[in-house]
């Protein structure tokens, strides 16, 4: 298709490449990077899928059937992670008497119960802010958690057929003073057999002796979760399952029919129990986790896409410049009788070679990159299962195809242009000055595209134009993309005026070198612009992320300040791995004379219209401690026995109005009716959708855990804080925060997200830097004579280097300012679009903005190092000799 039958041209193409390895490297560097990101993304997600597959087949290894209780309809919506978190999900369990019943069924080889629930190891360490001679130092409790992985307590398997957990040191637990620890946690925290360890299970921490260290399916622990394994009876007591188990594992005789056994077991209690095939369940569970990972994979692929997109810019640019350099050679070929078409093919086949080489190297680099990512995540304790890195052939092929296609397409335009070269060019002795097409048409086209983008964007913001079938955000996104394309088209025509703004400044600071550098970037506005564009993309995204998060932080701060009226809030330290706050804490706080007002929040899952719903309970004082807005009804009525309060959004969604009757299915009580007496808005993240007054209902007042506690104190000073700390410190897994701490916490979460985004975006900046290196190398090459002349008449090497650095800084400033401007504008638009959702804050951090512009300029200068050195080392005689 690209004329591979024309062997002489193919040969010339190949020879050209072999003669100029640097040229190949320059052009292919961006292909290599783009492809490598795709490959790394793929390896990473494939390897994780693979590891999860192994893990889940490990979970049920040797087990044929699993018997589990049928949950109430409404509870099933919550999936497998019920029982975790501060909201108590009252899941049904199985009576442990059923185990013996199942054992008697014909064909059952063995059956044993599994108990699993929340438990967390605790260690004591010195506070970071005190010295070893202070006895208080040992009092800091540290909740052990491996990264973000959950923490579990479970019963040690009692069957000889169970092979999930294997003791690698010591022995299994045999009484209520012993525990076995998973090896990941043991290694990570320096525990060994014989040590004493405190375990937080239920509400009260207790101390055990580690009698064994165990491995799960040959890895330290499943998915990095921490496991405290107790003997069966102890597990039942600690994990709130006295006389019960969570599920029963069954091993079937080899010669029995598995389906018959399955039916026989379900016949014991077909209403309350279901029997599932363990291997099928393993596959199902692995699938559901893999779907979660797909999201991560999608993000990686988006960033790979950005890298490739930036790469395409650079490839096209580089090709154009390379071909310009070879004008003579190509026109000689034309003079010798090569047709335009053949030149075109020659160039395209060269690009094909480069594409293949680049993509191949990209695959290799991608493998390296995935190792780096994996190790990096491990370093940050990002609990992912261990396993080999997997590169599927299809992923490799896809990466190569994308690389090749993008490269060839990027070479088509430059190739066409090259084929137009006049055969006379070879004979003429001219400096390679490209014909200058008017940039005016570009300006017109680009401006109209940008204006239509603006129309789409402002159309939705100021509601004068709505695109059909697009959401507000989608239309803003569409408008932003159109504007971006428009600006990319315009950039070459605004290069000159833009650079001219800096003429004076550069002339003043750098003298004649500044003048030369600014003039050089104006000389080839297209090249300058497309190099800058690559950087512009990265900076647009970075400043978008940057401004959005700064604004979100400001928003969070505003919300916390407006909404949390209480002096202090107590909540579980880690919301997904802790059972909540033992109720003793609120009692102790109430006894303090400094505490003036206090409200507890509790929550439970109930059924409403056959769907799960979170029912919350609060004290009367909550209305003084959290900002709420009355919509309908009154608080006084809400305090009555059968009254229920409903959040505004829930009332709107479900068409609930005042004095309606709602029927809830409450696990402890059964069906119960309430009258809606109060509709209100809870201005912060609400803990529930329906609310009761806590003391009105026994099933709430008898609970042992609070979700949150809010309270005021007489005087918010250091002494009070110390007193509070003393109390709260007795409750592991619970933290005390004031307004500032709440703001800090919200901000740190946003910041973490931002850092991850920065990490990925920096790849696109990295690709853009290769573009700058390319452009400058070629620009230096083009100006061999000019630089030689300057050296001859007395320009120092250092000055030549500086000239290249200055030129690079102009390109980077151009790209960085355009990108930052666009990013700020886009984030402003997004926040405008989010106004309906309560986003009002738009904050641009000057510090961050200038930091990133600075980073871009600095990186641009780093990218110029090689071209600058090359320019300064140029042989003067070669440059000025006239042969």
């Amino acid at each position: 298709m690209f004329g591979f039958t024309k062997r002489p041209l193919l040969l010339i193409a190949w020879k050209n490449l072999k003669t100029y390895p640097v040229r190949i490297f320059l052009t292919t560097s961006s292909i290599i990077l783009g492809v490598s990101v795709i490959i790394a993304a793929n390896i990473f997600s494939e390897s994780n899928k693979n590891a999860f597959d192994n893990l889940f087949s490990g979970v049920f290894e040797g087990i044929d059937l699993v018997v589990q209780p049928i949950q109430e309809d409404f509870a099933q919506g919550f999936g497998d992670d019920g029982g975790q978190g501060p909201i108590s999900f009252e899941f049904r369990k199985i009576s442990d008497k059923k185990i013996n019943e199942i054992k008697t069924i014909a064909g059952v080889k063995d059956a044993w119960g599994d108990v699993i629930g929340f438990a967390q190891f605790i260690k004591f360490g010195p506070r970071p802010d005190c010295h070893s001679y202070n006895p208080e130092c040992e009092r800091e409790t540290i909740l052990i958690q491996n990264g973000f992985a959950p923490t579990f307590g479970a019963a040690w398997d009692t069957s000889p057929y169970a092979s999930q957990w294997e003791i690698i040191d010591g022995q299994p637990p045999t009484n209520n003073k012993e525990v076995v620890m998973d090896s990941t946690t043991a290694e990570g925290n320096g525990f060994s057999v014989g040590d004493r360890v405190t375990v937080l299970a239920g509400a009260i921490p207790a101390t055990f002796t580690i009698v064994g260290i165990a491995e799960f399916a040959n890895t330290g622990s499943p998915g990095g979760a921490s496991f405290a394994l107790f003997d069966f009876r102890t597990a039942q007591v600690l994990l709130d399952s006295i006389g019960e188990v969570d599920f029963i594992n069954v091993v079937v005789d080899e010669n029995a029919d598995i389906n018959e056994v399955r039916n026989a077991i379900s016949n014991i209690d077909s209403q309350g129990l279901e029997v599932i095939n363990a291997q099928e369940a393993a596959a199902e569970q692995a699938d559901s986790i893999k779907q979660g990972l797909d999201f991560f994979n999608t993000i990686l692929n988006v960033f790979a896409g950005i890298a490739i997109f930036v790469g395409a810019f650079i490839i096209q640019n580089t090709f154009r410049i390379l071909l310009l350099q070879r004008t003579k050679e190509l026109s000689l070929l034309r003079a010798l009788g090569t047709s335009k078409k053949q030149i075109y093919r020659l160039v395209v086949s060269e690009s094909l070679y480069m594409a293949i080489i680049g993509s191949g190297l990209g695959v290799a680099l991608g493998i390296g990159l995935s190792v780096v990512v994996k190790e990096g995540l491990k370093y940050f304790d990002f609990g992912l299962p261990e396993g080999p890195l997997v590169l599927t052939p299809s992923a490799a092929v896809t990466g190569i195809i994308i690389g090749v296609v993008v490269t060839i397409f990027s070479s088509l335009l430059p190739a066409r242009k090259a084929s137009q070269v006049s055969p006379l060019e070879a004979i003429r002795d001219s400096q390679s000055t490209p014909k200058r097409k008017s940039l005016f048409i570009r300006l017109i086209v680009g401006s109209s595209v940008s204006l239509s983008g603006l129309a789409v964007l402002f159309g939705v913001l100021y509601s004068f134009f709505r695109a059909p079938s697009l959401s507000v955000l989608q239309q803003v996104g569409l408008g932003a993309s159109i504007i971006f394309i428009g600006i990319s088209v315009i950039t070459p025509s605004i290069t000159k005026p833009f650079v001219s703004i800096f003429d004076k400044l550069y002339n003043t600071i750098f003298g004649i070198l500044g003048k030369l550098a600014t003039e050089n970037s104006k000389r080839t506005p297209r090249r300058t612009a497309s190099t800058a564009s690559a950087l512009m993309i990265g900076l647009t995204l970075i400043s978008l992320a940057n401004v959005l998060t700064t604004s979100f932080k400001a928003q969070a701060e505003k919300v916390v300040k407006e909404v949390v009226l209480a002096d202090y809030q107590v909540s579980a330290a880690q919301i997904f791995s802790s059972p909540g706050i033992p109720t003793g804490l609120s009692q102790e706080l109430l006894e303090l004379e400094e505490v003036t007002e206090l409200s507890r929040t509790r929550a439970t899952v109930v059924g409403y219209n056959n769907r799960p719903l979170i029912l919350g309970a609060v004290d009367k004082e909550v209305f003084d401690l959290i900002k709420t807005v009355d919509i309908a009804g009154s608080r006084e009525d809400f305090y009555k026995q059968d009254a229920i309060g409903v959040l505004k959004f829930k009332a709107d969604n479900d068409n609930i109005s005042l004095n309606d009757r709602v029927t809830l299915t409450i696990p402890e009580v059964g069906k119960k009716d309430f009258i809606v007496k109060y509709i209100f808005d809870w201005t912060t993240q609400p803990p529930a959708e329906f609310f009761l007054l806590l003391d009105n209902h026994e099933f709430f007042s008898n609970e042992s855990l609070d979700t949150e506690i809010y309270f005021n104190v007489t005087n918010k000073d250091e002494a009070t804080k110390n007193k509070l700390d003393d109390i709260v410190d007795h409750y592991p897994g619970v933290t005390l925060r004031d307004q500032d701490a709440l703001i800090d916490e919200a901000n740190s979460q946003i910041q973490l997200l931002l850092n991850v985004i920065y990490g990925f975006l920096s790849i696109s900046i990295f690709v853009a830097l290769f573009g700058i290196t390319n452009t400058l190398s070629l620009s230096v090459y083009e100006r061999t004579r000019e630089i030689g002349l300057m050296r001859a008449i007395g320009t120092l090497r250092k000055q030549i280097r500086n000239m290249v650095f200055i030129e690079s800084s102009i390109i980077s400033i151009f790209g960085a300012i355009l990108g930052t401007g666009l990013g700020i504008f886009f984030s402003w638009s997004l926040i405008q679009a989010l106004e309906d959702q309560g986003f009002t804050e738009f904050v641009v951090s000057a510090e961050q903005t200038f930091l990133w512009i600075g980073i871009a300029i600095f990186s641009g200068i780093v990218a110029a190092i090689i071209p600058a050195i090359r320019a300064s080392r140029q042989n003067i005689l070669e440059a000025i000799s006239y042969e």
Partner: protein
Amino acid sequence: MEKIIKAKNLTKVYGEDGTSVTALNNVNLDFYENKFTAIMGQSGSGKSTLLHCLAGLDKVTSGSIYVKGVDLGSLNDKELTKIRRDSFGFVFQAFNLIPTLTAEENITLPSSIAGRKPNEEWINQIVNAVDIGDRLNHRPNELSGGQQQRVAAARAMATKPEVIFADEPSGNLDSKSSKELLTFMKSVVKELNQTIVMVTHDPFAASFAERVIMLKDGEVASDMEEPSQEEIISRVTSLSDI
């Protein structure tokens, strides 16, 4: 007359042992202040190599060059560059000017890169002499070939250098422009007390010089004072006959 450059036992060999070419073979020459010297020779005679070595653009294989007593061989790149910048001026055959700078900026380029203010009075004098006063704000591509070379000549003199090196300065010009340029060069030596060392293969160009040195196969074949164009032609002919 003051001796400004002394070349002693200059030898320049290109390439490795087996394939080496001797471009200069034990050349001994002195150049004097306030004099217009032409170096002639055929292609490959070593005349360009000699100029490059004298101007500190190339290193000699053996021998030494003293510029006002300073041994060029003892200088590093930075010192050599500064000598070129401050003590020498250059006019090349083509591509003499930076395309992005105006004529005026090109003329003051050596002072600019030295970070010095150009001597305005002196520059005005030169600009008038080369008659490009009305073209100062034009870029090179807006100037004729003759004008470009005159701008280059003006640049070469702008810092009042000790020596101006010219490498086939009129090589690309038509005869009228060529004559104008050479007349100007001759006049600056006389009237503005400049020193010029020019390499050329053209007897007409050489006839403007006060002294004509001829090279053949890397050696000095002839050294004439104030020769006429006819003398030069006959000497060139006799040399090429051998």
